[in-house]
Protein backbone atom coordinates (compact mmCIF):
# COMPACT_ATOMS: atom_id res chain seq x y z
CA UNK A 1 0.00 0.00 0.00
CA UNK A 2 2.60 2.51 1.04
CA UNK A 3 4.74 1.69 -2.03
CA UNK A 4 1.78 2.51 -4.22
CA UNK A 5 1.33 5.77 -2.38
CA UNK A 6 5.02 6.62 -2.76
CA UNK A 7 4.84 5.90 -6.47
CA UNK A 8 1.80 8.12 -6.70
CA UNK A 9 3.58 10.88 -4.81
CA UNK A 10 6.57 10.48 -7.16
CA UNK A 11 4.35 11.44 -10.08
CA UNK A 12 3.74 14.85 -8.48
CA UNK A 13 0.43 15.08 -10.29
CA UNK A 14 -0.63 18.24 -8.52
CA UNK A 15 2.53 20.15 -9.48
CA UNK A 16 2.42 18.90 -13.05
CA UNK A 17 -1.19 19.93 -13.34
CA UNK A 18 -0.42 23.44 -12.08
CA UNK A 19 2.57 23.67 -14.41
CA UNK A 20 0.65 22.62 -17.52
CA UNK A 21 -0.43 25.28 -20.04
CA UNK A 22 -4.02 26.46 -19.81
CA UNK A 23 -4.97 24.89 -23.15
CA UNK A 24 -3.81 21.47 -21.98
CA UNK A 25 -5.70 21.80 -18.72
CA UNK A 26 -8.91 22.76 -20.52
CA UNK A 27 -8.50 19.94 -23.02
CA UNK A 28 -7.97 17.36 -20.27
CA UNK A 29 -10.93 18.67 -18.33
CA UNK A 30 -13.20 18.57 -21.37
CA UNK A 31 -12.08 15.02 -22.17
CA UNK A 32 -12.78 13.89 -18.61
CA UNK A 33 -16.21 15.51 -18.69
CA UNK A 34 -17.01 13.98 -22.09
CA UNK A 35 -15.90 10.58 -20.83
CA UNK A 36 -18.09 11.00 -17.72
CA UNK A 37 -21.12 11.68 -19.93
CA UNK A 38 -20.28 8.64 -22.07
CA UNK A 39 -19.86 6.27 -19.08
CA UNK A 40 -23.38 4.73 -19.13
CA UNK A 41 -22.67 3.33 -22.62
CA UNK A 42 -19.18 2.09 -21.83
CA UNK A 43 -18.97 -1.27 -23.56
CA UNK A 44 -15.40 -1.71 -24.80
CA UNK A 45 -13.36 -4.48 -23.22
CA UNK A 46 -11.43 -4.41 -20.94
CA UNK A 47 -12.83 -1.12 -19.64
CA UNK A 48 -16.34 -2.50 -19.48
CA UNK A 49 -15.27 -4.56 -16.47
CA UNK A 50 -15.90 -1.53 -14.33
CA UNK A 51 -19.62 -1.89 -15.04
CA UNK A 52 -21.74 -3.18 -12.17
CA UNK A 53 -24.26 -5.12 -14.24
CA UNK A 54 -22.04 -7.83 -15.71
CA UNK A 55 -23.71 -10.62 -13.77
CA UNK A 56 -27.46 -11.06 -13.63
CA UNK A 57 -27.52 -10.13 -9.92
CA UNK A 58 -25.63 -6.88 -10.50
CA UNK A 59 -27.09 -3.39 -10.09
CA UNK A 60 -28.21 -1.29 -13.02
CA UNK A 61 -25.07 0.53 -14.19
CA UNK A 62 -26.64 3.89 -14.98
CA UNK A 63 -28.49 3.90 -11.65
CA UNK A 64 -25.23 3.26 -9.83
CA UNK A 65 -23.64 6.11 -11.75
CA UNK A 66 -26.52 8.33 -10.75
CA UNK A 67 -26.14 7.44 -7.08
CA UNK A 68 -22.38 8.05 -7.27
CA UNK A 69 -22.96 11.53 -8.64
CA UNK A 70 -25.65 12.33 -6.06
CA UNK A 71 -23.26 11.29 -3.30
CA UNK A 72 -20.56 13.36 -4.98
CA UNK A 73 -22.81 16.41 -4.61
CA UNK A 74 -23.28 15.46 -0.97
CA UNK A 75 -19.51 15.11 -0.54
CA UNK A 76 -18.80 18.50 -2.12
CA UNK A 77 -21.36 20.08 0.22
CA UNK A 78 -20.08 18.31 3.32
CA UNK A 79 -16.54 19.19 2.28
CA UNK A 80 -17.45 22.85 2.67
CA UNK A 81 -18.52 22.16 6.26
CA UNK A 82 -15.81 19.69 7.32
CA UNK A 83 -12.96 20.35 4.93
CA UNK A 84 -13.11 24.11 4.54
CA UNK A 85 -14.68 25.39 7.76
CA UNK A 86 -13.41 22.50 9.91
CA UNK A 87 -16.79 21.73 11.54
CA UNK A 88 -17.62 18.09 12.19
CA UNK A 89 -21.22 17.55 11.11
CA UNK A 90 -22.52 14.06 11.88
CA UNK A 91 -26.11 14.80 10.95
CA UNK A 92 -25.69 15.70 7.32
CA UNK A 93 -28.25 13.08 6.30
CA UNK A 94 -30.84 15.38 7.88
CA UNK A 95 -30.39 17.96 5.12
CA UNK A 96 -30.36 15.24 2.48
CA UNK A 97 -33.66 13.97 3.88
CA UNK A 98 -35.09 17.48 3.98
CA UNK A 99 -34.33 17.97 0.30
CA UNK A 100 -36.00 14.69 -0.63
CA UNK A 101 -38.99 15.37 1.61
CA UNK A 102 -39.39 18.92 0.30
CA UNK A 103 -40.04 17.74 -3.22
CA UNK A 104 -42.20 14.87 -2.00
CA UNK A 105 -44.32 16.98 0.37
CA UNK A 106 -45.00 19.75 -2.12
CA UNK A 107 -44.75 18.00 -5.48
CA UNK A 108 -46.58 14.70 -4.96
CA UNK A 109 -50.36 14.28 -5.26
CA UNK A 110 -49.94 11.54 -2.65
CA UNK A 111 -48.69 13.99 -0.03
CA UNK A 112 -51.01 15.17 2.78
CA UNK A 113 -49.55 18.68 2.40
CA UNK A 114 -50.62 18.86 -1.24
CA UNK A 115 -53.95 17.33 -0.27
CA UNK A 116 -54.53 20.10 2.26
CA UNK A 117 -53.56 22.75 -0.30
CA UNK A 118 -55.97 21.21 -2.82
CA UNK A 119 -58.97 21.38 -0.48
CA UNK A 120 -58.01 24.77 0.94
CA UNK A 121 -57.81 26.47 -2.45
CA UNK A 122 -60.22 24.24 -4.35
CA UNK A 123 -57.62 22.82 -6.73
CA UNK A 124 -58.25 19.59 -8.62
CA UNK A 125 -57.06 16.17 -7.42
CA UNK A 126 -54.22 16.17 -9.94
CA UNK A 127 -52.81 19.51 -8.81
CA UNK A 128 -49.44 19.70 -7.03
CA UNK A 129 -46.72 22.30 -6.73
CA UNK A 130 -44.81 22.29 -10.06
CA UNK A 131 -41.35 20.72 -10.10
CA UNK A 132 -39.61 23.99 -10.91
CA UNK A 133 -41.14 25.60 -7.81
CA UNK A 134 -40.18 22.63 -5.65
CA UNK A 135 -36.49 23.28 -6.29
CA UNK A 136 -36.39 26.68 -4.55
CA UNK A 137 -38.64 25.29 -1.81
CA UNK A 138 -36.16 22.46 -1.16
CA UNK A 139 -33.22 24.89 -1.22
CA UNK A 140 -34.89 27.33 1.15
CA UNK A 141 -36.04 24.57 3.51
CA UNK A 142 -32.54 23.09 3.80
CA UNK A 143 -31.00 26.54 4.10
CA UNK A 144 -33.37 27.48 6.92
CA UNK A 145 -32.71 24.14 8.62
CA UNK A 146 -28.96 24.80 8.33
CA UNK A 147 -29.24 28.24 9.92
CA UNK A 148 -31.72 26.96 12.48
CA UNK A 149 -29.39 24.16 13.54
CA UNK A 150 -26.27 26.28 13.25
CA UNK A 151 -27.33 29.42 15.10
CA UNK A 152 -27.52 27.87 18.57
CA UNK A 153 -24.93 25.10 18.09
CA UNK A 154 -22.03 26.70 16.24
CA UNK A 155 -20.84 28.31 19.47
CA UNK A 156 -19.95 24.80 20.52
CA UNK A 157 -16.61 23.38 19.51
CA UNK A 158 -15.38 20.03 18.23
CA UNK A 159 -16.96 17.03 19.88
CA UNK A 160 -19.99 18.88 21.23
CA UNK A 161 -20.95 20.11 17.80
CA UNK A 162 -20.63 16.57 16.43
CA UNK A 163 -23.04 15.21 19.04
CA UNK A 164 -25.65 17.92 18.53
CA UNK A 165 -25.60 17.48 14.74
CA UNK A 166 -25.85 13.71 15.19
CA UNK A 167 -29.04 14.31 17.15
CA UNK A 168 -30.37 16.65 14.47
CA UNK A 169 -30.08 13.98 11.75
CA UNK A 170 -32.08 11.57 13.88
CA UNK A 171 -34.70 14.18 14.77
CA UNK A 172 -35.45 14.77 11.08
CA UNK A 173 -35.83 11.06 10.35
CA UNK A 174 -37.92 10.29 13.45
CA UNK A 175 -40.13 13.32 12.86
CA UNK A 176 -40.72 12.17 9.29
CA UNK A 177 -41.66 8.72 10.57
CA UNK A 178 -44.06 9.89 13.26
CA UNK A 179 -45.76 12.89 11.69
CA UNK A 180 -48.30 10.68 9.91
CA UNK A 181 -50.70 13.43 8.87
CA UNK A 182 -47.95 15.44 7.20
CA UNK A 183 -45.46 12.87 5.86
CA UNK A 184 -47.54 9.67 5.71
CA UNK A 185 -45.19 8.32 8.42
CA UNK A 186 -43.41 5.06 7.77
CA UNK A 187 -45.49 4.41 4.66
CA UNK A 188 -43.68 7.23 2.88
CA UNK A 189 -44.80 9.38 -0.02
CA UNK A 190 -45.24 7.95 -3.51
CA UNK A 191 -45.60 9.74 -6.85
CA UNK A 192 -42.75 12.13 -6.16
CA UNK A 193 -42.57 14.28 -9.31
CA UNK A 194 -39.84 14.04 -11.92
CA UNK A 195 -38.37 16.99 -13.80
CA UNK A 196 -40.45 18.06 -16.84
CA UNK A 197 -39.20 16.98 -20.25
CA UNK A 198 -40.44 15.92 -23.70
CA UNK A 199 -42.21 12.58 -24.00
CA UNK A 200 -40.20 9.96 -25.89
CA UNK A 201 -41.69 6.60 -26.95
CA UNK A 202 -44.76 7.39 -24.88
CA UNK A 203 -42.73 7.79 -21.70
CA UNK A 204 -41.66 10.83 -19.72
CA UNK A 205 -38.12 11.95 -20.53
CA UNK A 206 -37.20 11.23 -16.91
CA UNK A 207 -38.55 7.80 -16.05
CA UNK A 208 -37.62 4.70 -14.08
CA UNK A 209 -36.20 2.81 -17.06
CA UNK A 210 -33.78 5.25 -18.70
CA UNK A 211 -31.58 5.87 -15.69
CA UNK A 212 -28.78 7.38 -17.77
CA UNK A 213 -30.87 10.54 -18.26
CA UNK A 214 -31.00 10.98 -14.50
CA UNK A 215 -27.28 10.46 -14.41
CA UNK A 216 -26.69 13.17 -17.02
CA UNK A 217 -28.94 15.57 -15.14
CA UNK A 218 -27.14 14.95 -11.83
CA UNK A 219 -23.76 15.18 -13.55
CA UNK A 220 -24.64 18.59 -14.97
CA UNK A 221 -25.73 19.80 -11.55
CA UNK A 222 -22.53 18.39 -10.04
CA UNK A 223 -20.29 20.18 -12.57
CA UNK A 224 -22.03 23.45 -11.83
CA UNK A 225 -21.62 22.93 -8.09
CA UNK A 226 -17.94 22.05 -8.42
CA UNK A 227 -17.39 25.26 -10.37
CA UNK A 228 -19.18 27.34 -7.73
CA UNK A 229 -17.48 25.58 -4.82
CA UNK A 230 -14.04 26.24 -6.34
CA UNK A 231 -14.86 29.91 -6.68
CA UNK A 232 -16.07 30.02 -3.10
CA UNK A 233 -12.95 28.34 -1.76
CA UNK A 234 -10.73 31.05 -3.23
CA UNK A 235 -12.98 33.92 -2.22
CA UNK A 236 -12.84 36.12 0.88
CA UNK A 237 -15.22 33.73 2.57
CA UNK A 238 -12.89 30.84 1.76
CA UNK A 239 -9.98 32.69 3.34
CA UNK A 240 -12.03 33.32 6.47
CA UNK A 241 -12.86 29.60 6.73
CA UNK A 242 -9.21 28.72 6.36
CA UNK A 243 -8.22 31.13 9.13
CA UNK A 244 -10.96 29.84 11.46
CA UNK A 245 -9.93 26.26 10.83
CA UNK A 246 -6.29 26.96 11.58
CA UNK A 247 -6.78 29.07 14.72
CA UNK A 248 -10.17 30.41 15.63
CA UNK A 249 -8.98 32.87 18.29
CA UNK A 250 -6.25 34.25 16.06
CA UNK A 251 -8.82 34.62 13.28
CA UNK A 252 -11.14 36.60 15.54
CA UNK A 253 -8.40 39.00 16.65
CA UNK A 254 -7.62 39.51 12.95
CA UNK A 255 -11.18 40.67 12.41
CA UNK A 256 -12.79 37.48 11.10
CA UNK A 257 -16.24 37.10 12.62
CA UNK A 258 -16.02 33.37 13.34
CA UNK A 259 -19.65 32.70 14.05
CA UNK A 260 -20.92 34.43 10.93
CA UNK A 261 -18.64 32.50 8.60
CA UNK A 262 -19.30 29.18 10.30
CA UNK A 263 -23.00 29.79 9.85
CA UNK A 264 -22.35 30.49 6.17
CA UNK A 265 -20.52 27.19 5.81
CA UNK A 266 -23.37 25.37 7.51
CA UNK A 267 -26.01 27.02 5.35
CA UNK A 268 -24.15 26.37 2.09
CA UNK A 269 -23.45 22.77 3.09
CA UNK A 270 -27.09 22.27 4.03
CA UNK A 271 -28.28 23.64 0.69
CA UNK A 272 -26.09 21.28 -1.30
CA UNK A 273 -27.21 18.35 0.86
CA UNK A 274 -30.82 19.30 0.21
CA UNK A 275 -30.23 19.56 -3.51
CA UNK A 276 -28.72 16.06 -3.59
CA UNK A 277 -31.69 14.76 -1.60
CA UNK A 278 -34.08 16.36 -4.06
CA UNK A 279 -32.43 14.57 -7.00
CA UNK A 280 -32.47 11.29 -5.09
CA UNK A 281 -36.13 11.55 -4.08
CA UNK A 282 -37.19 12.55 -7.57
CA UNK A 283 -35.39 9.64 -9.24
CA UNK A 284 -36.80 7.14 -6.71
CA UNK A 285 -40.23 8.76 -7.10
CA UNK A 286 -40.73 7.53 -3.55
CA UNK A 287 -39.52 8.92 -0.24
CA UNK A 288 -39.66 7.11 3.10
CA UNK A 289 -37.94 7.75 6.46
CA UNK A 290 -35.84 4.58 6.49
CA UNK A 291 -33.88 5.79 3.48
CA UNK A 292 -32.23 8.34 5.78
CA UNK A 293 -30.72 6.29 8.58
CA UNK A 294 -27.91 7.68 10.69
CA UNK A 295 -25.31 5.37 9.11
CA UNK A 296 -25.69 7.35 5.91
CA UNK A 297 -24.31 10.36 7.80
CA UNK A 298 -21.26 8.35 8.78
CA UNK A 299 -20.83 7.19 5.19
CA UNK A 300 -20.89 10.83 4.04
CA UNK A 301 -18.27 11.86 6.60
CA UNK A 302 -16.16 8.85 5.60
CA UNK A 303 -16.29 9.95 1.95
CA UNK A 304 -14.88 13.38 2.77
CA UNK A 305 -12.29 12.14 5.25
CA UNK A 306 -11.04 9.19 3.21
CA UNK A 307 -10.91 11.22 0.02
CA UNK A 308 -9.03 14.04 1.70
CA UNK A 309 -10.91 16.80 3.46
CA UNK A 310 -10.44 20.29 2.14
CA UNK A 311 -9.93 19.13 -1.43
CA UNK A 312 -12.96 18.91 -3.71
CA UNK A 313 -11.32 16.25 -5.82
CA UNK A 314 -10.57 14.23 -2.72
CA UNK A 315 -14.21 14.41 -1.69
CA UNK A 316 -15.25 13.33 -5.21
CA UNK A 317 -12.87 10.37 -5.09
CA UNK A 318 -14.11 9.38 -1.64
CA UNK A 319 -17.73 9.51 -2.79
CA UNK A 320 -16.87 7.48 -5.86
CA UNK A 321 -14.98 4.74 -3.98
CA UNK A 322 -17.49 4.35 -1.15
CA UNK A 323 -20.44 4.18 -3.53
CA UNK A 324 -18.96 2.31 -6.46
CA UNK A 325 -16.96 -0.43 -4.73
CA UNK A 326 -19.86 -1.86 -2.69
CA UNK A 327 -22.00 -1.96 -5.85
CA UNK A 328 -19.28 -3.49 -8.02
CA UNK A 329 -18.59 -6.21 -5.48
CA UNK A 330 -22.15 -7.04 -4.59
CA UNK A 331 -21.27 -10.72 -4.93
CA UNK A 332 -19.29 -10.44 -1.70
CA UNK A 333 -22.13 -8.74 0.09
CA UNK A 334 -21.46 -10.42 3.46
CA UNK A 335 -17.89 -9.17 3.49
CA UNK A 336 -18.59 -5.58 2.63
CA UNK A 337 -18.88 -4.12 6.16
CA UNK A 338 -15.69 -5.95 7.11
CA UNK A 339 -13.79 -4.66 4.07
CA UNK A 340 -15.16 -1.19 4.71
CA UNK A 341 -13.91 -1.25 8.29
CA UNK A 342 -10.46 -2.51 7.33
CA UNK A 343 -10.17 0.08 4.57
CA UNK A 344 -11.15 2.89 6.95
CA UNK A 345 -8.60 1.86 9.56
CA UNK A 346 -5.92 1.39 6.91
CA UNK A 347 -6.47 4.85 5.47
CA UNK A 348 -6.45 6.46 8.92
CA UNK A 349 -3.15 4.78 9.80
CA UNK A 350 -1.33 5.07 6.48
CA UNK A 351 -2.73 8.32 5.24
CA UNK A 352 -4.66 10.25 7.90
CA UNK A 353 -4.92 13.34 5.72
CA UNK A 354 -6.94 11.34 3.14
CA UNK A 355 -6.11 9.88 -0.27
CA UNK A 356 -5.81 13.22 -2.13
CA UNK A 357 -5.65 15.90 0.54
CA UNK A 358 -5.39 19.57 -0.20
CA UNK A 359 -1.76 20.60 0.13
CA UNK A 360 -2.72 22.99 2.87
CA UNK A 361 -4.50 20.36 4.88
CA UNK A 362 -1.49 18.09 4.56
CA UNK A 363 0.69 20.87 6.00
CA UNK A 364 -1.71 21.43 8.89
CA UNK A 365 -1.50 17.73 9.67
CA UNK A 366 2.30 17.89 9.67
CA UNK A 367 2.21 20.91 11.94
CA UNK A 368 -0.13 19.27 14.45
CA UNK A 369 2.09 16.20 14.50
CA UNK A 370 5.14 18.33 15.22
CA UNK A 371 3.29 20.12 18.00
CA UNK A 372 2.25 16.81 19.51
CA UNK A 373 5.83 15.54 19.31
CA UNK A 374 7.18 18.71 20.91
CA UNK A 375 4.58 18.45 23.65
CA UNK A 376 5.53 14.81 24.22
CA UNK A 377 9.23 15.74 24.34
CA UNK A 378 8.54 18.45 26.92
CA UNK A 379 7.02 16.04 29.43
Amino acid at each position, binding site marked *: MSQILDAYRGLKLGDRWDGAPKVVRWAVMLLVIAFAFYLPYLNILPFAYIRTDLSSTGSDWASVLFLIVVYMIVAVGLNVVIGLAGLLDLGYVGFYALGAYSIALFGSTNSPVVGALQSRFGFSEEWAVPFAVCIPIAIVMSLIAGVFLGAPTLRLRGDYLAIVTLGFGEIIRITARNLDNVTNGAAGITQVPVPPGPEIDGRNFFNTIDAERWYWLALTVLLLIIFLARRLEHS*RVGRAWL*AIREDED*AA*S*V*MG*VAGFKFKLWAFAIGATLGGLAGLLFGSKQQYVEPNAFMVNLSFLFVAMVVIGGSGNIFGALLGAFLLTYLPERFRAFVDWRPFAFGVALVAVMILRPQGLVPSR*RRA*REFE*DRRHEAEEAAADV
Partner: protein
Amino acid sequence: MLLEMKDAVLNYGKIQALHGISVEVNEGEVVSLIGANGAGKTSTMRALSGVRGLSQGQITFNGEDVTKLRADQRLRKGLVLCPEGRGIFPGMTVTENLNMGAYTRKDKSAIDEDYDRVFGLFPRLLERKKQVAGTMSGGEQQMLAIGRALMSRPKLLMLDEPSMGLAPMLIQQIFDIITEISQQGTTILVVEQNAKQALSRSDRAYVLETGNIVKTGTGAELLDDPSVREAYLGVA
Protein backbone atom coordinates in the same frame (compact mmCIF):
# COMPACT_ATOMS: atom_id res chain seq x y z
CA MET B 1 -6.88 58.74 27.05
CA LEU B 2 -6.84 56.11 24.32
CA LEU B 3 -7.73 53.03 26.35
CA GLU B 4 -9.29 52.72 29.76
CA MET B 5 -10.21 49.48 31.48
CA LYS B 6 -12.12 50.04 34.72
CA ASP B 7 -12.71 47.56 37.57
CA ALA B 8 -12.49 44.61 35.20
CA VAL B 9 -13.53 41.21 36.56
CA LEU B 10 -12.96 38.13 34.43
CA ASN B 11 -14.16 34.65 35.36
CA TYR B 12 -13.36 31.26 33.90
CA GLY B 13 -16.27 29.25 35.22
CA LYS B 14 -15.95 29.48 38.99
CA ILE B 15 -12.38 30.72 38.95
CA GLN B 16 -11.86 34.44 39.02
CA ALA B 17 -8.79 35.44 37.03
CA LEU B 18 -9.07 39.22 37.34
CA HIS B 19 -10.40 40.74 40.56
CA GLY B 20 -11.37 44.18 39.31
CA ILE B 21 -8.31 45.75 37.72
CA SER B 22 -8.00 49.16 36.09
CA VAL B 23 -5.53 49.97 33.32
CA GLU B 24 -5.08 53.17 31.33
CA VAL B 25 -3.10 53.82 28.18
CA ASN B 26 -2.57 57.31 26.74
CA GLU B 27 -1.99 58.05 23.09
CA GLY B 28 1.64 57.61 22.05
CA GLU B 29 2.70 55.73 25.18
CA VAL B 30 4.42 52.41 25.60
CA VAL B 31 2.80 50.78 28.63
CA SER B 32 3.77 47.42 30.02
CA LEU B 33 2.07 44.93 32.25
CA ILE B 34 4.45 42.67 34.13
CA GLY B 35 3.83 39.74 36.40
CA ALA B 36 4.62 36.10 37.04
CA ASN B 37 2.92 33.08 35.50
CA GLY B 38 -0.75 32.99 36.38
CA ALA B 39 -0.85 36.63 37.51
CA GLY B 40 -3.58 37.37 34.95
CA LYS B 41 -1.52 38.94 32.17
CA THR B 42 -2.95 36.88 29.33
CA SER B 43 -6.45 37.13 30.84
CA THR B 44 -6.13 40.92 30.72
CA MET B 45 -5.16 40.70 27.07
CA ARG B 46 -8.05 38.40 26.27
CA ALA B 47 -10.48 40.75 27.96
CA LEU B 48 -9.06 43.78 26.18
CA SER B 49 -9.07 42.15 22.75
CA GLY B 50 -12.56 40.73 23.21
CA VAL B 51 -11.68 37.04 22.98
CA ARG B 52 -13.27 36.70 26.45
CA GLY B 53 -16.12 38.85 27.72
CA LEU B 54 -15.86 40.62 31.09
CA SER B 55 -18.12 39.61 33.97
CA GLN B 56 -17.96 43.13 35.39
CA GLY B 57 -16.28 46.37 34.51
CA GLN B 58 -15.96 48.56 31.49
CA ILE B 59 -13.55 49.06 28.60
CA THR B 60 -13.43 52.39 26.79
CA PHE B 61 -11.37 52.78 23.64
CA ASN B 62 -10.90 56.08 21.82
CA GLY B 63 -13.81 57.58 23.76
CA GLU B 64 -16.15 54.73 22.89
CA ASP B 65 -17.52 51.97 25.10
CA VAL B 66 -16.31 48.70 23.56
CA THR B 67 -17.13 46.40 26.49
CA LYS B 68 -19.80 44.53 24.57
CA LEU B 69 -18.04 44.37 21.21
CA ARG B 70 -16.66 41.13 19.77
CA ALA B 71 -12.98 40.73 18.97
CA ASP B 72 -13.47 41.30 15.24
CA GLN B 73 -15.44 44.49 15.91
CA ARG B 74 -12.75 45.85 18.24
CA LEU B 75 -10.14 45.22 15.58
CA ARG B 76 -12.07 47.41 13.18
CA LYS B 77 -11.86 50.21 15.77
CA GLY B 78 -8.06 49.86 15.86
CA LEU B 79 -7.69 47.85 19.07
CA VAL B 80 -5.47 45.03 17.89
CA LEU B 81 -3.99 42.04 19.70
CA CYS B 82 -0.87 40.20 18.68
CA PRO B 83 -1.52 36.87 20.42
CA GLU B 84 1.07 35.00 22.46
CA GLY B 85 3.14 32.09 21.26
CA ARG B 86 2.19 30.48 18.00
CA GLY B 87 -0.80 32.66 17.30
CA ILE B 88 -0.05 32.69 13.60
CA PHE B 89 -1.78 30.55 10.96
CA PRO B 90 0.67 27.64 10.63
CA GLY B 91 -0.61 26.28 7.31
CA MET B 92 -0.49 29.63 5.50
CA THR B 93 2.58 31.20 3.97
CA VAL B 94 4.12 34.39 5.33
CA THR B 95 2.36 36.49 2.70
CA GLU B 96 -0.96 34.79 3.34
CA ASN B 97 -0.62 35.43 7.06
CA LEU B 98 0.11 39.12 6.49
CA ASN B 99 -2.79 39.23 4.10
CA MET B 100 -5.08 37.96 6.88
CA GLY B 101 -3.94 40.91 8.96
CA ALA B 102 -5.46 43.21 6.36
CA TYR B 103 -8.63 41.12 6.18
CA THR B 104 -10.99 43.92 7.16
CA ARG B 105 -9.38 46.51 4.88
CA LYS B 106 -10.20 47.32 1.29
CA ASP B 107 -7.75 50.18 0.57
CA LYS B 108 -5.49 48.25 -1.76
CA SER B 109 -2.75 50.84 -2.26
CA ALA B 110 -2.45 51.56 1.47
CA ILE B 111 -2.22 47.82 2.10
CA ASP B 112 0.71 47.64 -0.31
CA GLU B 113 2.41 50.46 1.62
CA ASP B 114 1.93 48.51 4.83
CA TYR B 115 3.51 45.43 3.25
CA ASP B 116 6.56 47.56 2.54
CA ARG B 117 6.52 48.89 6.08
CA VAL B 118 6.33 45.41 7.61
CA PHE B 119 9.04 44.05 5.31
CA GLY B 120 11.12 47.13 6.21
CA LEU B 121 10.80 46.34 9.91
CA PHE B 122 11.37 42.62 9.38
CA PRO B 123 13.65 42.01 6.38
CA ARG B 124 13.68 38.36 7.46
CA LEU B 125 10.01 38.02 6.54
CA LEU B 126 10.70 39.34 3.05
CA GLU B 127 13.29 36.60 2.55
CA ARG B 128 10.74 34.01 3.67
CA LYS B 129 7.72 35.44 1.86
CA LYS B 130 6.58 32.13 0.42
CA GLN B 131 7.55 29.92 3.33
CA VAL B 132 4.85 28.10 5.27
CA ALA B 133 4.63 29.83 8.65
CA GLY B 134 4.45 26.64 10.71
CA THR B 135 7.92 25.62 9.52
CA MET B 136 9.67 28.81 10.66
CA SER B 137 11.65 29.34 13.87
CA GLY B 138 10.05 30.75 17.02
CA GLY B 139 11.60 34.18 16.50
CA GLU B 140 10.44 34.37 12.90
CA GLN B 141 6.94 33.36 13.93
CA GLN B 142 6.90 36.12 16.53
CA MET B 143 8.02 38.65 13.91
CA LEU B 144 5.27 37.40 11.63
CA ALA B 145 2.67 37.76 14.39
CA ILE B 146 3.71 41.36 14.99
CA GLY B 147 3.83 42.07 11.28
CA ARG B 148 0.38 40.60 10.79
CA ALA B 149 -1.03 42.75 13.59
CA LEU B 150 0.52 45.85 11.99
CA MET B 151 -1.20 45.02 8.70
CA SER B 152 -4.53 45.98 10.29
CA ARG B 153 -3.21 49.51 11.04
CA PRO B 154 -3.73 49.46 14.81
CA LYS B 155 -4.21 52.60 16.87
CA LEU B 156 -3.26 50.54 19.89
CA LEU B 157 -1.11 47.46 19.41
CA MET B 158 -1.34 44.96 22.26
CA LEU B 159 1.51 42.48 22.43
CA ASP B 160 1.09 39.35 24.52
CA GLU B 161 4.48 38.05 25.69
CA PRO B 162 6.47 38.87 22.57
CA SER B 163 9.67 37.48 24.13
CA MET B 164 8.25 34.09 25.06
CA GLY B 165 10.55 31.21 24.21
CA LEU B 166 13.11 33.37 22.42
CA ALA B 167 16.90 33.55 22.82
CA PRO B 168 18.24 36.67 24.64
CA MET B 169 19.65 38.19 21.47
CA LEU B 170 16.32 37.81 19.69
CA ILE B 171 14.47 39.33 22.65
CA GLN B 172 16.68 42.39 22.34
CA GLN B 173 15.91 42.56 18.63
CA ILE B 174 12.15 42.19 19.08
CA PHE B 175 12.09 44.97 21.67
CA ASP B 176 14.15 47.21 19.38
CA ILE B 177 11.48 46.75 16.76
CA ILE B 178 8.69 47.42 19.27
CA THR B 179 10.42 50.71 20.16
CA GLU B 180 10.66 51.52 16.47
CA ILE B 181 6.96 50.81 15.91
CA SER B 182 6.17 53.13 18.82
CA GLN B 183 8.35 55.87 17.32
CA GLN B 184 6.46 55.47 14.05
CA GLY B 185 3.36 56.57 15.98
CA THR B 186 1.57 53.46 17.22
CA THR B 187 0.56 53.28 20.89
CA ILE B 188 1.69 50.06 22.54
CA LEU B 189 0.55 47.93 25.44
CA VAL B 190 2.87 45.03 26.11
CA VAL B 191 2.48 42.14 28.52
CA GLU B 192 5.75 40.57 29.62
CA GLN B 193 7.41 38.13 31.92
CA ASN B 194 10.77 39.58 30.99
CA ALA B 195 10.38 42.51 33.39
CA LYS B 196 13.79 44.05 32.79
CA GLN B 197 13.32 44.52 29.06
CA ALA B 198 9.72 45.61 29.43
CA LEU B 199 10.34 48.18 32.16
CA SER B 200 13.38 49.73 30.53
CA ARG B 201 11.42 50.21 27.29
CA SER B 202 8.16 51.57 28.75
CA ASP B 203 6.87 54.97 29.69
CA ARG B 204 4.67 53.47 32.38
CA ALA B 205 4.04 50.04 33.80
CA TYR B 206 1.67 48.02 35.95
CA VAL B 207 2.65 45.11 38.18
CA LEU B 208 0.07 42.34 38.23
CA GLU B 209 -0.14 39.74 41.01
CA THR B 210 -2.82 37.02 41.22
CA GLY B 211 -5.41 39.06 39.40
CA ASN B 212 -4.77 42.39 41.14
CA ILE B 213 -2.68 45.40 40.24
CA VAL B 214 -0.25 45.85 43.10
CA LYS B 215 1.95 48.62 41.79
CA THR B 216 2.11 51.21 39.08
CA GLY B 217 4.56 53.88 38.01
CA THR B 218 6.94 54.93 35.28
CA GLY B 219 9.22 52.26 33.88
CA ALA B 220 12.25 53.83 35.54
CA GLU B 221 10.54 54.09 38.96
CA LEU B 222 9.59 50.46 38.96
CA LEU B 223 13.06 49.40 37.81
CA ASP B 224 14.40 51.05 40.98
CA ASP B 225 11.65 49.79 43.27
CA PRO B 226 13.16 47.34 45.79
CA SER B 227 10.17 44.97 45.90
CA VAL B 228 9.97 44.85 42.13
CA ARG B 229 13.70 44.29 41.90
CA GLU B 230 13.46 41.41 44.31
CA ALA B 231 10.38 39.74 42.83
CA TYR B 232 10.92 40.24 39.09
CA LEU B 233 14.49 41.21 38.42
CA GLY B 234 16.20 38.64 40.63
CA VAL B 235 18.24 41.21 42.57
CA ALA B 236 17.90 41.85 46.28
